[in-house]
C-alpha cells in the first residue's frame, strides 16, 4: 500500500543506503554471525516464536512497566552495521548480536570456531557493543556420527570460559531446535526468554542512552546555531523506535513534546524572544495544499524538515499527520478531530503571531482542505454508526470547513448576483495555484478535498452546490446533537448567503428561526442584528406589513444608533405617506414597538359620569420612535354594554368610590426582553410536613411550590413572542378620537374628551393610531379599563342629623335633594304638608348648599321658606342636573296625645318579679312615634311621604299607695333620653266627673331637674267626702324643656300621662301580732310564740263586694276570705295550719281573729311573716261554671296559679305535691273553690314592716347569725 514500504525492503541488503526510514515493516535489528546455514534453518521457527509471548519491560525514569511483544529483524552480521561514533541513528541500530554455532567437536572448535568468535567479539568491542549472545545448537544426529565426542557440555563450557567471563548467561544452548520433542520445546523456551530479556536490556540501555543524548541536545536549544529541525529528527527517531516496538503511546508523547516545544517557541517569539531558527519558518506561505493523512509518513514534508526547508505549515502538517497516524493506531479517531480543530486554529494564530505573509484566502484553502482531509481520514477508519454517534466530535470541523468555504466564496466573488469579476478570477487562479497538483494518493478519489475545493472555486453554481451541501450537513449535525444555537448561527450565515444571491425567500426561514431562538433567550444585541437582516429580507420580499412591523421594532430598538433608528422610522413614515390611487388597504401593525401605553387617567377620577356629563381620558404614551411622528388620529375603541348592576350608577356609589385617583397604570411587557419574566407569577411556597400515619412522627418535611404548573409550563413553540401579524382592528360604534397631533419621542400626553350619552358601561378595548396608511393597534388594553355613564332619577331624602329625634324639642333634619337628570328651575318648590303635631321651624337665614355629584361644593344660596296654615313651601335654589342640594330645617314634635298607662298596671304587683326582666328591657328604650310628612316635589306629580320617627324622652309609671283608709297616688317619671330636662307645672287631674274627689299634691317644688336616666316621683293624696267611685280616671301632666341649651327660647312642652286606678278603697285591715310565750319577756328561738292575726272590715257593703262569695242571710252579709301566713325569708316555722278560710261579716268594724303558733328559727329582729288575704269563691259559682276552658285557664294564670306558685315558692312547710294535686284537680274540671286576690289598696296590712326581737335560747351553744 505504501510506496515508502519499499525502503524497508532494502534494509536487509545493505546499510549503505541511509537514511533508513521507519515503516510499518520495521523491526529492531538483530545481527547474526557464525553459521549462516544453521541460522537459516532455525530462522522460521525463531521469527515465529519470538513475538508469541509478551515480556515485561521495566523502564527507566519511573515510567510504568509495559508488557511488550518483541519482534526482530535478523540480519547477517557485518561490521558496517555497527554504528560509527557519533551516529545517532536508532532505527538502524543493532540491538543484539548473536553468534550461531553447532560445533560439537573440540578440535573443530579450537581450529576455527574459537577464532571466528574472537574476531566477532573484537569487532564488537571496537564498537563498544556489549549486547551479544552466543548460541550453541546441539543436535542428536551429529552426536551419533561422531563416536569420540566430548561431553557436549565441554564445548559450551569452553566457550563460556573463553568469552563469557562472569557473563555465563551470554551463551545458551539450543537443543534439537528442529525436532518436535518436549526437550527441544523446553530448550526453545529458555532460549527465547533469554533472547527477549537480552533484547529488552539492550533497549533499555540503548534507548536510555539515546534519550540522554537527546536531552542534552535539547538543553542546548538556547545556544546559537541550534536547529529545531535537527532536534526534530532526533526525537522523531525515538518516536519511530517506540512505534517500532508498538509503543504508540510513547511515540505520540515524542511528537507531543515536539509540538509543545515548537508552540512555546512561537509564543516566545510573539513575546519578542525570537530564536534564529524560527525565522526560517516565517517565510511567506506559498503552498496551502492542506494536511495529508493518508500515508503513515509524508516523506516529502519530512525531507523538507530534514533539509530545513519546511515552512510552518509544512512542519505543522507533518507533525499532525504523525500524531494522527499514531492516534488512529491507538483507536482514538475522535481525538484526531479534536486535535485537528485545535491545530487549525492554532496554525492560523501562529501565522498571525509570526507575521507570516499569507496571500488572502490561502489559509482558508488550507483549513478547508485540512478539515475535509481529517474528516475523510476518520471516515476511512470508522464505520457509519460510529461516526453518527460521534458527530459532536466532528461537527466542529464541518462547521469550520463551511465557514472557510463561505469566506473563500466571498473572497472570490462567487457569492454575488453577477458572479466573479476579473479581479476575483485572478485571485481564484492564484489560490488554485497554491494548491499545486493533486497528490497521487487521492488522484483516484472522486470526492477528495482537493477536487472539492477546485470544483467549488471553479464556478458560481458549483460553489453554491458545495456550500449548501456543507451548510446543510452542518446544520443537520448540529440539530441532531442538540446544539440548536450553533445550528441557528450556521443558518444565519446561510441566510446571508441567500441574501447576497438575491434569494430572500430562502433567507427568511433561517432568519426567523434564529430570531425566535434569540427572542426566547432574550439576547438583545443578537435580536437587533438579526432583525436588521430580517428587515432587509422582508423588504426584498415585498412583505410590506412584516417589513413595517420589523422596522417599527428596529426604530424602537435602543441598541441601534440614532441614525439607524431614524432610518427605520422614516421607512415607516415614507410608506405611510405614500400616495396610492384608490386608497389602498391600510396596513395594521402592532403598537407595542411604536409606542407604549403607560398610564391612563380619568377625569372625573372615579370614571363615572352622568348622562350629558363630560369625561376626559388622558393617555400617557411613551413613543419609542426616535423622531417626532405626525399622527393623523388616535382612537380608542370603546365597547358599550348596558350595565346590569344599577348600583354602580347611583350617586351613592359615586361618593363611596371616590378614593381612586383615576390613574390606571399599565405594565408593559417589552417583547423580546428579559423583563418579561417578571410577569410570571411569584412562587407560592408552602411548608410541607408529612407525618407517619402510625405514630405521627415527622417523616418528611420540605417546601412545596404550589404553582409549579404555572411556572414550569412548557413554553409552547406556537406562542409567538413576536406579534408580527394577527392584529385585528375591532369594529366598534363607540370611539374616542383625537386628531392631528405630533407624537414626540418619549412621553406624550393625549387627552380625549367625550360627552356621555347613553347610560351604561364603556370598556376601552383597543388603541389605534393612524399614521397615513399605517395603523398601529394595541389590540387589548389590559388591565381592563372602564368608565360608566349613569342616569339618575331626582330624589329627595330627609334624615335627622342626630341618631334619633326626641319629641318635644326642636331638632335639625337634613334635606338632600339629588337632582339627577332634573334641572332645578327658578320657582321650583318643595311643598310640605303641615302636621299639627310637628311644626317646621326655620330661620330666615337658613342656607342651601349645592354640591356637584362628586361632592364638590358648587354654591350656596339662601332658602326662602313660606309657610301657610296647611303647607310649608320651600323654594329650592336653581341647580343644574346631577347636583345635590342640601339644607337643614328644624322640626319639633309636640307630644299632644297622652301616654296611656298600660292595662297590666293592676297586675304589676303580682307580676313584678316574674316580668321584671322584660320590663326592664322595655323600660330602657323609649317609646317612639312616627310622624309622616307629605312632600310634593317639583319633578313628580306624586307626593313623597316621609316618615320621621320621634322618641318620647319620658316614661311614666303610677302606683297606688294606702295608709289605712287614706289613699295616695304616686307617679314616677323616668328620663330615658341623654338630655337633662327641667320639669314644671306638674299636675294630676281627675279626669272623671267626681267633683267630690280632691287630689292634694304632696310635692314641694314646682320646678325640678331630671337628669338623664333618672326618675322623679310625684305623690298626691286622694281625699273624698262621700262614697268613692270604683275606679278613678287620672291625667298627669307636666311641662318640660331641655336644660342644656343656651337658647331660652324653648317653650315648655307638656307631657301627659293618663291612667286609671280601680278598687282602691280599703276594705280590710289585716293586723298581725306576735307574742312571746306566756311568762317570757321575749321570743326565743326554738320556742313557740303565738301569732294573732286580726282581720277587720273597714266599710259596709260596697259595690265591689257584690260577687259570688257574698252570702246574705237575715240582713247580714258575709263573705268568705282565705288567709294565709307566708314567711318568705324562712325566719318562722308556722306550726299547724298556716292558712284557713274564714267567714267574714260584711260590716264595718267586723273583726275576725286567728291564732296560730309560730316558732322563730333565728335570733334577732325578725320581720313578721306575711299575712295574705284572698277572696274565697265557692265552687258552685255560676261564673266559674260558665268559664270556658280558655278563659278559665287564663284566669287561672292570672290569679290562682300565681298564687299557688307564690305559695310553693315561699312556704317551706307545705309540700308541693299537695298543691299540684289541687291544681291538677282543677284541670280535670272538678268543681273546686277558687281564690281571687284583692286589688291593691283593698287590703291594708297594718303590720307590714313590723319586726320583733327574738333572743337566742339559752340552750343554744351555737350562735347563728345570718345577715340578710
Amino acid at each position: 500500500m505504501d510506496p515508502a514500504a519499499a525502503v524497508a525492503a532494502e534494509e536487509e541488503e545493505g546499510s549503505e543506503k541511509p537514511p533508513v526510514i521507519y515503516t510499518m515493516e520495521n523491526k529492531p535489528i538483530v545481527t547474526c554471525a557464525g553459521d549462516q546455514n544453521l541460522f537459516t534453518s532455525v530462522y522460521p521457527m525463531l521469527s515465529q516464536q519470538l513475538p508469541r509471548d509478551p515480556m515485561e519491560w521495566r523502564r527507566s525514569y519511573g515510567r510504568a512497566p509495559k508488557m511488550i511483544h518483541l519482534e526482530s529483524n535478523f540480519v547477517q552480521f557485518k561490521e558496517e552495521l555497527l554504528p560509527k561514533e557519533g551516529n545517532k541513528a536508532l532505527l538502524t541500530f543493532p540491538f543484539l548480536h548473536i553468534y550461531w554455532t553447532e560445533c560439537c567437536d573440540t578440535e573443530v572448535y579450537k581450529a576455527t570456531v574459537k577464532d571466528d568468535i574472537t574476531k566477532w567479539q573484537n569487532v564488537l568491542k571496537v564498537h563498544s557493543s556489549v549486547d551479544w549472545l552466543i548460541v550453541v545448537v546441539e543436535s542428536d544426529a551429529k552426536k551419533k556420527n561422531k563416536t569420540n565426542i566430548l561431553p557436549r557440555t565441554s564445548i559450551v563450557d569452553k566457550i563460556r570460559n573463553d568469552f563469557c567471563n562472569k557473563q555465563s548467561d551470554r551463551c545458551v544452548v539450543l537443543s534439537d531446535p528442529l525436532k518436535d520433542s518436549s526437550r527441544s520445546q523446553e530448550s526453545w523456551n529458555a532460549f527465547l526468554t533469554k533472547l527477549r530479556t537480552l533484547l529488552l536490556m539492550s533497549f533499555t540501555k540503548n534507548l536510555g542512552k539515546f534519550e540522554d543524548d537527546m536531552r542534552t541536545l535539547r538543553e542546548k536549544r538556547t545556544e546559537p546555531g541550534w536547529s529545531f529541525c535537527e532536534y526534530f529528527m532526533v526525537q522523531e527517531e525515538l518516536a519511530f523506535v517506540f512505534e517500532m516496538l508498538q509503543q504508540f503511546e510513547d511515540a505520540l508523547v515524542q511528537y507531543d513534546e515536539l509540538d509543545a516545544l515548537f508552540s512555546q517557541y512561537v509564543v516566545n517569539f510573539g513575546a519578542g524572544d525570537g530564536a534564529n531558527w524560527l525565522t526560517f519558518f516565517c517565510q511567506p506561505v506559498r503552498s496551502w495544499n492542506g494536511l495529508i493523512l493518508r500515508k503513515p509518513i509524508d516523506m516529502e514534508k519530512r525531507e523538507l524538515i530534514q533539509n530545513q526547508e519546511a515552512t510552518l505549515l509544512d512542519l505543522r502538517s507533518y507533525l499532525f499527520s504523525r500524531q494522527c497516524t499514531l492516534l488512529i493506531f491507538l483507536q482514538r479517531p475522535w481525538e484526531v478531530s479534536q486535535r485537528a480543530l485545535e491545530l487549525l486554529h492554532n496554525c492560523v494564530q501562529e501565522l498571525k503571531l509570526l507575521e507570516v505573509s499569507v496571500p488572502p484566502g490561502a489559509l482558508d484553502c488550507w483549513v478547508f482542505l485540512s478539515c475535509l482531509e481529517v474528516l475523510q481520514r476518520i471516515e476511512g477508519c470508522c464505520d457509519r454508526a460510529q461516526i453518527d454517534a460521534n458527530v459532536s466530535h466532528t461537527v466542529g470541523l464541518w462547521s469550520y470547513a463551511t465557514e472557510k468555504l463561505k469566506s473563500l466564496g466571498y473572497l472570490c466573488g462567487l457569492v454575488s448576483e453577477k458572479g466573479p469579476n476579473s479581479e476575483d478570477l485572478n485571485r481564484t487562479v492564484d489560490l488554485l495555484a497554491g494548491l499545486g497538483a493533486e497528490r497521487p494518493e487521492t488522484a483516484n478519489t472522486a470526492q477528495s478535498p482537493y477536487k472539492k475545493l477546485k470544483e467549488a472555486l471553479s464556478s458560481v453554481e458549483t460553489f453554491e452546490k458545495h456550500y449548501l451541501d456543507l451548510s446543510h450537513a452542518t446544520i443537520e449535525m448540529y440539530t441532531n446533537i442538540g446544539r440548536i444555537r450553533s445550528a441557528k448561527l450556521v443558518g444565519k450565515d446561510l441566510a446571508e448567503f441567500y441574501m447576497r444571491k438575491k434569494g430572500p425567500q430562502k433567507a427568511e426561514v433561517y432568519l426567523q428561526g434564529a430570531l425566535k431562538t434569540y427572542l426566547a433567550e432574550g439576547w438583545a444585541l443578537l435580536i437587533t442584528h438579526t432583525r436588521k437582516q430580517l428587515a432587509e429580507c422582508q423588504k426584498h420580499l415585498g412583505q410590506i406589513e412584516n417589513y413595517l412591523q420589523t422596522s417599527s421594532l428596529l426604530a424602537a430598538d435602543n441598541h441601534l444608533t440614532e441614525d439607524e433608528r431614524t432610518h427605520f422610522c422614516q421607512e415607516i413614515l415614507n410608506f405611510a405617506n405614500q400616495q396610492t390611487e384608490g386608497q389602498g388597504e391600510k396596513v395594521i401593525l402592532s403598537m407595542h414597538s411604536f409606542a407604549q401605553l403607560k398610564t391612563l387617567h380619568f377625569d372625573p377620577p372615579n370614571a363615572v359620569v352622568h348622562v350629558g356629563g363630560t369625561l376626559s381620558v388622558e393617555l400617557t404614551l411613551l413613543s419609542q420612535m426616535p423622531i417626532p411622528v405626525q399622527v393623523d388620529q388616535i382612537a380608542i375603541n370603546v365597547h358599550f354594554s348596558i350595565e346590569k348592576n344599577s348600583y354602580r350608577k347611583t350617586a351613592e356609589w359615586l361618593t363611596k368610590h371616590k378614593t381612586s385617583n383615576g390613574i390606571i397604570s399599565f405594565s408593559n411587557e417589552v417583547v423580546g426582553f428579559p423583563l418579561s419574566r417578571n410577569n410570571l407569577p411569584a412562587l407560592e411556597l408552602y411548608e410541607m410536613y408529612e407525618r407517619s400515619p402510625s405514630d405521627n412522627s415527622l417523616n418528611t418535611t420540605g417546601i412545596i411550590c404550589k404553582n409549579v404548573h404555572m411556572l414550569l409550563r412548557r413554553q409552547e413553540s406556537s406562542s409567538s413572542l413576536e406579534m408580527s401579524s394577527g392584529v385585528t382592528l375591532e369594529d366598534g360604534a363607540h370611539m374616542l378620537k383625537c386628531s392631528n397631533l405630533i407624537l414626540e419621542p418619549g412621553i406624550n400626553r393625549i387627552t380625549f374628551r367625550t360627552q356621555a350619552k347613553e347610560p351604561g358601561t364603556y370598556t376601552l378595548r383597543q388603541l389605534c393610531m393612524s399614521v397615513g396608511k399605517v395603523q398601529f393597534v394595541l389590540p387589548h388594553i389590559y388591565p381592563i379599563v372602564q368608565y360608566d355613564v349613569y342616569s339618575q332619577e331626582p330624589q329627595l331624602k330627609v334624615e335627622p342629623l342626630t341618631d334619633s329625634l326626641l319629641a318635644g324639642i326642636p331638632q335639625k333634619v337634613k334635606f338632600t335633594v339629588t337632582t339627577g337628570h332634573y334641572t332645578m328651575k327658578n320657582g321650583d318648590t318643595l311643598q310640605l304638608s303641615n302636621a299639627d303635631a310637628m311644626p317646621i321651624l326655620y330661620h330666615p337665614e337658613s342656607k342651601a348648599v349645592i354640591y356637584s355629584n362628586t361632592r364638590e361644593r358648587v354654591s350656596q344660596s339662601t332658602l326662602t321658606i313660606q309657610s301657610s296654615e296647611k303647607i310649608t313651601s320651600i323654594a329650592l335654589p336653581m341647580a343644574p342636573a346631577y347636583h345635590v342640594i342640601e339644607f337643614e330645617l328644624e322640626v319639633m314634635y309636640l307630644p299632644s296625645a297622652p301616654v296611656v298607662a298600660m292595662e297590666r298596671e293592676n297586675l304589676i304587683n303580682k307580676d313584678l318579679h316574674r316580668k321584671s326582666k322584660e320590663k326592664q328591657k322595655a323600660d330602657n328604650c323609649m317609646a317612639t312615634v312616627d310622624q309622616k310628612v307629605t312632600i310634593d316635589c317639583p319633578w313628580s306629580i306624586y307626593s313623597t311621604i316621609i316618615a320621621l320617627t320621634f322618641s318620647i324622652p319620658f316614661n311614666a309609671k303610677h302606683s297606688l299607695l294606702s295608709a289605712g283608709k287614706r289613699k295616695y297616688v304616686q307617679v314616677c317619671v323616668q328620663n330615658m333620653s341623654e338630655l337633662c330636662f327641667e320639669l314644671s307645672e306638674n299636675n294630676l287631674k281627675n279626669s272623671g266627673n267626681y267633683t267630690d274627689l280632691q287630689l292634694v299634691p304632696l310635692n314641694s317644688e314646682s320646678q325640678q331637674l331630671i337628669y338623664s336616666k333618672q326618675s322623679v316621683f310625684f305623690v298626691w293624696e286622694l281625699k273624698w267626702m262621700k262614697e268613692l267611685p270604683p275606679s278613678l280616671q287620672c291625667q298627669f301632666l307636666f311641662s318640660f324643656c331641655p336644660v342644656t341649651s343656651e337658647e331660652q327660647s324653648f317653650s315648655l312642652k307638656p307631657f301627659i300621662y293618663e291612667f286609671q286606678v280601680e278598687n282602691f278603697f280599703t276594705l280590710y285591715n289585716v293586723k298581725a301580732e306576735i307574742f312571746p310565750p306566756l311568762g317570757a319577756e321575749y321570743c326565743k328561738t326554738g320556742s313557740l310564740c303565738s301569732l294573732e292575726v286580726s282581720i277587720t272590715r273597714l266599710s259596709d257593703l260596697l259595690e265591689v263586694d257584690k260577687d259570688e262569695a257574698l252570702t246574705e242571710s237575715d240582713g247580714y252579709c258575709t263573705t268568705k276570705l282565705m288567709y294565709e301566713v307566708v314567711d318568705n325569708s324562712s325566719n318562722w316555722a308556722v306550726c299547724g295550719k298556716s292558712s284557713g278560710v274564714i267567714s267574714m261579716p260584711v260590716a264595718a268594724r267586723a273583726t275576725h281573729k286567728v291564732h296560730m303558733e309560730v316558732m322563730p328559727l333565728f335570733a334577732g329582729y325578725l320581720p313578721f311573716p306575711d299575712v295574705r288575704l284572698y277572696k274565697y269563691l265557692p265552687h258552685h259559682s255560676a261564673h266559674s261554671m260558665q268559664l270556658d276552658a280558655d278563659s278559665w285557664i287564663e284566669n287561672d294564670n292570672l290569679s290562682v296559679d300565681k298564687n299557688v306558685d307564690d305559695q310553693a315558692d315561699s312556704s317551706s312547710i307545705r309540700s308541693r305535691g299537695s298543691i299540684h294535686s289541687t291544681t291538677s284537680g282543677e284541670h280535670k274540671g272538678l268543681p273546686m273553690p277558687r281564690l281571687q286576690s284583692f286589688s291593691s289598696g283593698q287590703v291594708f296590712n297594718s303590720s307590714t314592716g313590723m319586726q320583733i326581737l327574738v333572743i337566742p335560747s339559752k340552750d343554744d351553744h351555737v350562735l347563728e347569725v345570718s345577715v340578710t
Partner: protein
Amino acid sequence: MERIALLSPVCSPRLQNYPLYIRSVPTENELKFHYTVHTSLDVVDEKISAMGKALVDQRELYLGLLYPTEDYKVYGYVTNSKVKFVMVVDSSNTALRDNEIRSMFRKLHNSYTDIMCNPFYNPGDCIHSRAFDNMVTSMMMQYVK
C-alpha cells in the same frame, strides 16, 4: 482582550439563558462576542447534562475550555444554581492559562454571590452593580495586554 458574560440560571422557565451581565473589552466586535457566547451555551448545556450523570457532590464548577474558535477561546463555569459564567479570551492571549481562568471564574463567582446577598437585588434581574463592574474591570485590565 477578554470578554465576560454572565448568564442566567436555567431554572427560569420562560426565558432561560438570557444574559444577566455581559461585558466586553474592547467594545468593538461586540456583536461577534455576543454570538460566540450565545453559541457556547450549546456546549455548556452539553457539559452540564453530561455532568448530571456524574456524581453531583464532587462536581467541578469549572467547565474548562468550551470550544476554541479561530480567534477566541471560550471558557465556561457553572454554579450549583446553574448560573453560567462564560469567558471569552482572545486566542492570542497566551498569558491566560487554565489556572488564571479558574481563579478569575472563582472571583466572578464570589462577586456574584455578593450580589445575590444584596436584599435589594431581585434574583434573575440583570446585574447593575458598580461593585461588580469594578471587579470585572479590574480583572479584565489585569490580563489585557
